[in-house]
């Protein structure tokens, strides 16, 4: 079993409609029932982000995201799948459920 990150690409926060929320709920139940579920969550807006840099000992806090871009990570799933083609099918279902583009990436060596 390998683990994959499915990132939801978005350009607005908190924008899921009730229909999308319920589709995501159904998809999550399916992930759980089929043994693919590891973790999932939505993320608050990039404006709530703080970048922390403690590499020199004294932490420096910077307000806002480290990248200013039109699109960002709106939420994510971490799933488990026996092989890539299964993960690919799940990513397609995820994109359909949340009605957004989804980026699929394998974890390193997991």
């Amino acid at each position: 079993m390998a683990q994959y990150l499915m990132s939801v690409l978005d350009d607005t926060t908190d924008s899921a409609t009730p229909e999308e929320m319920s589709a995501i709920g159904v998809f999550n139940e399916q992930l759980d029932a089929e043994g693919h579920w590891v973790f999932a969550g939505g993320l608050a807006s990039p404006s709530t982000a703080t970048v922390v840099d403690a590499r020199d000992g004294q932490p420096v806090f910077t307000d806002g995201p480290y990248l200013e871009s039109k699109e960002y990570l709106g939420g994510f799933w971490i799933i488990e799948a026996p092989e890539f083609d299964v993960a690919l099918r799940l990513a397609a279902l995820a994109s359909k459920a949340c009605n957004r583009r989804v980026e699929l990436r394998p974890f390193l060596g997991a």
Partner: protein
Amino acid sequence: MTDVEHGGTAGRRLGEIARVHREEWARVVATLARRFGDLDLAEDMAAEALATAVERWPVDGVPPSPGGWLTTTAHRKAIDRIRREARREEKHREAMMLSDTPEPLGAGEPLGAIEDDRLRLVFTCCHPVLAMEARVALTLRMVGGLTVPEIARAFLVQETAMGRRITRAKAKIKAARIPYRVPSRADLPARVTGVLAVLYLIFNEGYLASAPEREAVRGDLTAEAIRLTRLVRDLMPADGEVAGLLALMLLTEARRAARLSASGELVTLDEQDRGSWDRALIAEGHALVRSRLASGQAPGRYQILAAINAVHTDARDVRDTDWSQVVALYDQLVRLDPSSIVRLNRAIAVAELDGPEVALAAVDGLPLDGYHAFHATRADLLRRLGRSEESRAAYDRAIGLAGNSAETAYLIRRRGQLAGP
């Protein structure tokens, strides 16, 4: 044994190695890829096994099963490397890699609809998450055994760029663990388009090699492309484009023997000895084209190209060619694919139907300045119009761009036949 005899034997054995390389390369790579699930490792170890063969066979003789010998040798080398690497990393010291049957990827896995290692390698290299260019390049590299410079030339890109593209594709397959198998039946229709595009490119590379250092026509590649297409057809007998591509390849392959003169010069369709065309391949190709026509379904690109080749191979003499039908088929193709190369090929048929002047008007202005066939076509049309000077300039451009030595020889001869200084 004299030195001369010894040299002769060694030379024959090296020739044998070249033959084994051509015939067995894809199978060795495919077997290793299945066992280890790692294309890079498979390719490196196949190359090392071949290097060992080059050292050993001239001395020890060629083993009775050269392909089996290469596979076994490459397999041992792969295990040695995995052991070395496992030892280097403390945490993998006790890894299961130390067994002689490593990495069960593919082992317990159902074989899919077909049990052909090479075809599975094709479907892995043609996975839809890879960019189309990467799929083609990777298949030519892994299955066709072509070098990176050859692939780069076929696609008119820099060698370094092509090398990077192949490396990235292999890394993605490895990191994402793209499975090494023929996709399930439900996935097949979506995946087969890319596979057909790749098989056609392999066929074309074999039919007219892109590089001068290779043989001009490589029957090993065309045969492999046909063999793989037949396998895909067994898998999807109802798919019209699969049948169309197979027919196209058979009708093209049928003319292979007539394509090179005794001196190794390319012979164009109009000058070919039609008696040396392979009638059995033509009959099989025609039967496929007829069955597609009878299906009543709208034909795709390969089916139209096959139909065009059926018209050509129907004619006992070039003068008997039904050019109006060829042009009509090209019109149909232009509607599906209005690319410049299709329009160039249409213009060549138009020249036979409506004359070189009409054809030249259709050719001029096509944005194909870097493509040798564009200049070769212009050169021929200008020659027929008696515009020798312009024709010579066009031949010069075509000769400068042509990669294939048989084609270059043909173009030089035609240029030499021009009137004037």
